């Protein structure tokens, strides 16, 4: 984990392989990643470490990604990207309504994620000027 990572990412994903793969990828790309398997663990992590981005699966063993973002927003400003295996229009609309920047349908190409992370970096820079 790099000390000068441009983003601190909270990854919540209950599919173990996916979580590991995504975490590896993100860390390889130089981001600081905290990974959780469920909503509760994710929330606990977020309370300990300030997060810039939430990358969250829609369906979680103990809740859903929409709730998670809502709860995280009470802790501080955070950007959200939600992922799911479904691509229903209603779900996507609801994700937007819940405040997510983007709803990615799994499996999404890494390029798509990277493009989004680039946008988030800009956003976060704007949020906390250094």
């Amino acid at each position, binding site marked *: 984990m790099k000390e000068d990572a441009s983003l601190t990412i909270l990854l919540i994903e209950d599919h173990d392989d*996916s979580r*590991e*793969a*995504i975490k590896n990828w993100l860390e*390889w790309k130089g981001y600081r990643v905290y990974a959780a398997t469920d909503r509760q663990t994710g929330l606990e992590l977020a309370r300990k470490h300030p997060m810039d981005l939430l990358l969250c699966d829609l369906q979680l063993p103990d809740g859903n990604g929409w709730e998670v973002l809502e709860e995280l927003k009470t802790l501080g400003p955070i950007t959200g990207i939600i992922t799911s*295996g479904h691509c*229903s229009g209603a779900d996507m609309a609801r994700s937007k309504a819940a405040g997510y920047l983007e709803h990615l349908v799994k*499996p999404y190409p*890494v390029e798509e994620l990277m493009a989004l992370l680039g946008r988030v970096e800009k956003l976060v820079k704007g949020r906390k000027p250094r």
Partner: protein
Amino acid sequence: MAFRDLPIKRKLVGLMLVTSLLVLFMAGTAMLIYEYQSYRREMAAKLTAMGLIVANNSGAVLGFDDENLARAILSGFRVEPEVTGAAFYDAQGRLYARYPATKALGEFPPTVAEGETPGFHRTHFVLYVPVNQGEKRMGTLYVQADYRQMYRRLRTYLMILAGVLVSAGVLGLMLAAGIESGVSAPLLELANVAKIISRRRDYSLRVVKRSRDEVGTLTEAFNTMLGQIQSRDSKLRDSEKRFREMIDALPAAVYTVDPEGRLTHFNPAAVELAGRIPDLGTDRWCVSGRLYHTDGRPMNLEECPMALAVKEQRPVRDMEVIIERPDGTRCWVVPHPTTLWDADGRLTGGIDMLVDITERKNAEESLRKSEERFARFMQHLPGLAWIKDLGGRYVYANSAAADVFQVARERLYGRTDDEVFPPEIAATFKANDHAALASPIGVQMIEELKHRDGEIHHSIVNKFPIPAPDGRPLLVGGMAIDITDRKRAEEALQRSEARYRSIFEGVAVSLWEEDFTAVMEAVGKLRAQGVEDLRRYCDEHPGFLKEMRGLIRVVDVNESTVAMFEARDKSELLGALPDIFPDASLPVLAEELNALTAGSSFLQGEATLRTVQGNTIEVLFAMSLLPGTGEYDRVLFSLIDITRRKKVERALHESEHRFRMIADHIPVLAWTADPLGHGTWYNRQWHEYTGMAKDNEAGMGWEALHHPEHRARVLHSLEQSIAAGEPWQESFPMRGRQGQYRWFLSRAVPIFDDAGQLLRWFGTAVDVTDVREAEQLVAHLAAIVESSQDAILSETMDGRISTWNRGAERLFGYASEEVVGRSIAVIIPPERWDEDVAIRRRQAHGEGYEHFETVRVRKDGSRIVVSLSVSPIRDGTGATIGVSKIARDITDKKRAEEELERALQSARSANRSKDEFLAALSHELRTPLMPVLFTVSMWQQDETLPEKLRTNLGVIRRNIEIQSRMINDLLDLSRIRANRLELVFGVVDLHDIIGRAVEVCRGHPKWGEVSIQVLLEARAHHVRGDADRLQQVFWNLIQNGLKFTPAGGRITVQSSNQDRLIRVSVSDTGRGIEAESIDRIFEPFEQCGRRGKESLQGLGLGLAIAQRIVTSHGGSLTVASDGENQGAVFTVELEALLPDGPELEAAHSSLKEQEA
């Protein structure tokens, strides 16, 4: 207590004592010190002197060594009480002798050398004197003295000092008493007086000046001030006293209040007004009287004018108030409230004068009443009344006078006779007025005046002077009664009396002049006793009428009467009166009395009387009152003998009347005709129906009333009957008064006399139209009901079947005969019996059911589902008398519906579970791809890995992506098939979408090998649609083009507008499509005509999905190809939004907002 706050007296005493004691003490101390010092000095000097003397005298003693002498010399010190010891030392310093001899040796210094230093010590004084003889030192004298003496003196001294101090203190206190009377007493007195003055407000008090010092000056100044205050106060008191006296002397009630409204003063008149002595402590404004408004409403005390004036500090004027005293009498007062202010402008209260205007009001009221009475009296005077002043001007006239004078009253007032009447009449009136003024009791005369009717009227006029209080005439009153009518009547009466007499005797009818005075007096008495219904009284008291008959006095009869009653002369007739009016005629007398008492002056009737010869005669009589001297002294009876006429009439009338009565009231048309058939009479109903006039009835041709089609037939049969003299009957239409035809059943019967001669025909015609119509209607309805396929039945309100058609027989299996009269329950399943009761209850309220689904039982016991329509059957009065039901068998329909519903349900649920399954499946299929994709992507970019491996990783990755896309396509397709494709509509820029789609294709392996040209030429390029889905469409099309276009080929994406459409074509230079396959290209799993290695990529769903998406947007996706290797053109057409349309503008503005 601080010193400051101590009374002056104590301060002075304290100061004095402290000062004097301090002075004394210091003086004493100084003297003490001085005494001490001087005593010591004296003692030293004395002892030294004594020592020297002793020493000088002792040289020899020592020289002689005479010890006893030495002791004797030493004992000389006895005279000095202070000396406690003395001794001689020899030249060697040894003790030689001592004083006193008993004193222990050790108490002396052992040697002189070792002796104490001479001088003062703490407890004693030591002196060494050398004892010389000549020049030779013989020894030393030692003297020791203590201070006892000195201390004794000092003690005495101190005691004296203490005594002086005490006496000085006592003296000081005594002096202080003097100070009190000299300084503080006058001040206290001053203060005391000021206190008394402020309490009693008695400024006449003075303080006695006792000294000429400052206190004296103060006292003087104080007294001067008091003097001024007293003079001011006395002036004020004078003024106040004068004010109070003035108030008390005022005839009106006056009171004053403080600003809070508490009564502070009142005068005797106020006591009178209040009806009690007010209490200054508790009473308030208006001496707390019970107040009323002038219209009688109670008034709140706190809203009385004085209260308003004080509270609101505004003038209250012209407000009248009624005060009720405790004894209930009331005073009508006008308050004059005024607020009072002190010199500083503070409100100090108010003064109110209540002016009692009760008497004035009473006087006004009684005047008004009196005037009203006068006016009413005058208005109802039967004659004219007026008043003129001395100048002849009218000051009053009643309406009758104004009417006769023909001048409106308001115009009459102020005018003189000259201005109102013609000159000669005015002159007469004026002359009469003068005469009246000259006479104290007035004059009476007859005056003439032309009235409105144009005739000269005569009036008796009384004119009289109306005096002023001093007795001199002030006004002239006049009253007139029109006597014109009376005069005329009198003249007419005289004329008529003469005429009457001549007629009375000459006329051919019997005339009786009778005097009913006595009778009417008796009747009057009876009524006075409370008898109201005279007829009943007569019925109940038969003797009364007989008595009355005796009281009637026949004044006169004429000659015709004598003849009618078969008498020889009047006297015989008058002598036989009781016979002439038999008891049977008494009811007539009752009628007469009744008429007379009722005030009617005319009565006509019939009576049966007897002649003098005993023959009965019937007479028609008329009674009338003639004007006479009394009320009932001239009652005239005229009698006509109608005996014969009555007889004939009676017989005729009876039969005719009876017939007409019947004929006019039977509900049929009736007529009579002569033997030849000519109509002679028609009854009322006939006239009413035909509209023919009554006077036109005899012999008219009623043939005209017949319907042209039936006339010939009817008349023919009638003629035949008449000819044969036989009864006739026929049905035919006949015209009514409005021209309508109705059917009549007509009969005619011949009427024969006893001799068998045909007298006339009597005919009737009964209206049978309604019956005929009803019969027809019933026949129609019956036919309809019978032929109906539905079961139609009716039941009575108690649930019995009353009708049952063939449809019912078919449906329920019962024949009509089997069920009519039985309970409806036979066709209702037992569990639904309640339902039928409910139906009938609802019908009773006149409410029906339509297509009410229920179950019924057939005769064979099987159940059928029927649709039931129920409606009430009403009789002519609108009352519900039964229920009609139409039942249709819907068993089959019902079953079919249910099956359909079941099928739909299962289809829906199957569909739903399929959807759910597909969703879950795609989720499950895609999830495992994630880690692979990420891991592969990572390795692919990891430059530490060999290039070849990374290329191969790219292959893996691409295939994973393809698989993922295929899963998406499958899901989409299943959605499309289930019509569950969800579209999120918005305003979409197609050019934007196309750009993005091209961008996404960048990752395609053929990117770079095939050139892509994008020509966005459409002007209107916005549509309503789902951005993601539309992107999917173009991505699919471009992807498709890339797939089938060889390297070096070209794909062109071009947009254009066609009318309201935007057209986007994606053309490639690829393999094209064979003509036979082109129709199936959009079918799922179809990759027709494009076989080859490319076809392995994907399931061939892309185009199918693209087309469905476009169709869902209301657009079209078409394909064209000139054949193999000729390329293909896919064209999307969608409805474009107008560039300046509202939707687009809204989208733009919301976009701007987001940017902002």
